[in-house]
């Protein structure tokens, strides 16, 4: 099953009225891409694995409460408020598992179609390469959001089931209501998605370089890990602000009072720069590529 199958099947009107159908085609292309990304068994398995973590953490904390300051950040707060399960789970998953899932989806995007030989037929539909790339990128970003949101929702539900819910203590020691905290959790989710959008662009570029999807996935995941390792070496702290993984954990700025907008801005700007570089690079590569399969 590929994006092209759905499209070719639904191709009824002739190519004589492209301007009228352009908008409808984009939507249809995007919908079929979403269906493809969100129905692929591999991706569903990834989401399922991601969702296990909040459950695992919740049950473990319920079974034996950690001492203050033990384990990952927020872990000790989980016992007093279930909402912290969302933040703990995101903190635990953001360094490795979320980027891995995103690498799989974005690395697959173009290389996967090329690998099973559907990229060519997709371009016959006719879909311009630019549009195809745009839709593939949007698909990867939506998948990133779905991954992060699944973790958050499962964390929220498990937290509500196993732990008390009431006012939430922020990093600054200020207490806010549960409803306010839910808004902040939503903002955290948005920020985390934005952070992964940078990796999506890199993954998409890598994906245009090869016809072997597993290679693109692995390379993207490796790039994410390299960036994180470089970020943890203090001797090269001059380059830290330019690493795409550097601002990932800055979602904590949303849990301060007042909110540290400055740090968030920096993080979003970093991702914007990476997207601005790697999307055109992916476009250039796809435009200049011989599509033979």
């Amino acid at each position, binding site marked *: 099953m590929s994006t092209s199958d759905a499209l070719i099947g639904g191709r009824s009107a002739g*190519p004589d009225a*492209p301007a009228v159908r352009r908008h409808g085609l984009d939507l249809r292309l995007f919908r079929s891409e979403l269906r493809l990304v969100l129905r692929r068994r591999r991706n569903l398995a990834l989401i399922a694995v991601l969702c296990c973590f909040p459950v695992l953490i919740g049950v473990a904390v319920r079974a034996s409460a950690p001492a*203050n*300051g033990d384990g*990952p*950040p*927020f872990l*000790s*707060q989980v016992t*007093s408020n279930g909402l912290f399960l969302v933040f703990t789970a995101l*903190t635990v998953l953001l360094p490795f598992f979320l980027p891995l899932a995103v690498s799989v989806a974005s690395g697959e995007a173009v290389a996967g179609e090329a690998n099973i030989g559907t990229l*060519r037929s997709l*371009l*016959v*539909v*006719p*879909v*311009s*390469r*630019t*549009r195809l790339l745009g839709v593939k990128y949007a698909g990867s970003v939506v998948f990133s959001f779905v991954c992060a949101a699944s973790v958050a929702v499962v964390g929220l539900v498990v937290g509500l089931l196993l732990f008390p819910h009431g*006012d939430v*203590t922020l*990093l*600054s*020691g*200020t*207490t806010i209501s549960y409803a306010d905290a839910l808004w902040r959790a939503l903002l955290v989710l948005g920020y985390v998605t934005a952070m992964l959008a940078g990796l999506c662009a890199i993954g998409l570029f890598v994906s245009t370089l090869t016809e072997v999807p597993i290679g693109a996935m692995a390379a993207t995941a490796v790039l994410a890990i390299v960036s994180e390792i470089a970020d*943890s*070496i*203090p*001797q090269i*702290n001059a380059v830290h602000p330019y690493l795409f993984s550097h601002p990932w*954990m*800055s979602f*904590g700025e949303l*849990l*301060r009072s*007042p909110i*540290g907008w*400055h740090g968030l801005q920096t993080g979003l700007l970093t991702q914007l*720069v990476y997207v*601005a*570089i790697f999307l*055109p*690079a992916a*476009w*250039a590569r796809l*435009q*200049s590529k*011989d*599509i*033979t*399969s």
Partner: protein
Amino acid sequence: MSGRRLSGSSQDGRGTVVAMSSPALSRRVVWLVPAAVVLVVLVSITIPRVVASAAPSLPHRSAAQLLVDVAHSGHTPLAGTVVETARLGLPALPEVGDTSISPTSLLAGSHTARVWYDGRNSSRIALVSNLAETDLLRNGRDVWLWTSGKNTAQHARLPASAPQGVETPSPTLTPQDAARRALAAVDPSTRVTVDGTAKVAGRSAYELVLQPRDHRSLVGDVRIAVDSATGVPLRVQVHARGATGRPAFETTFTSVSFSRPSADVFRFSPPPGAKVSTLGLPTSSKGSGPAVDHPDTKPVVHGSGWAAVVELSGVSLPQSGGPADGGRESGGNLLSSMGQAMTPVHGAFGTGQELRTTLVSFLLLDDGRLFVGAVPPAVLEQAAS
């Protein structure tokens, strides 16, 4: 062949690039787009830096006038972000899972703090790391020290007669604190000059330079960027003697605004579930202290000015290689790695270990006496014997 035609025809249908006539040229041409983006990004990163580092032109002000400006700026309300960087040559450690911030960890690496001051008697310093925060708040007579990683709140109540500028223990050095300390050292031992202007946190500032006259001092100069409008010190840089390039210690505002912060910022009540204890003033309580035992006696100062040597007794370093207790906290970690970086010495003063950093030297004798000064170790040994 057929593949080429198929993809080519699809492009024609959409009216986009990849002309079939000269594919080799267009293949190179499309790469101009990402190349242009990279160029734009590089330029937009570089230009603000160049513009920001360009010295603004300001009316002349003498060093003494600037000293007064700084002295009068103590009640300017402000809110901003401060970045402190120490390059003392101490071993830096990777900050992995660092959730608690101890004052000792400020001796290595770079740290960020958010500061607020209402111009009167409320102030707040929030030492922030990725998912942790240590807050020191003063709201009127109440002082709170909140540590998010440990979920502890320590409280102290200042005496009613406390003067406005009472010194509260601060987890970091703001530019104001650092400038005040440097200015306290201004006496015949120091050459004070104004060395042009600078842009700091988007504001134009005068560069006040303090140079120790005593050549034994490891400090080459202290440069204080004084805001031209308010007189608030925006940046303090300490250069080691003879060193060129980056300062050995630096604390600078990266963003600042001089409007009065909202009163909510200074309000604090311990959250439910937090461990609340009493904070001893003026030294921080033993619980949050680093692994150095508190000295039994008051420090003795040998000499004066920049070459002064401070002597503490009853000091012992934690046993190195004990990850069980000191390992997790980065401060304890730093101290034990400092212990490993020390070299054994012996002389007329007895035996001990010494450590030289770019700005400060330490001499720890086996009898528990610790000598610290911004001087080469030889001066410490002299003071010890």
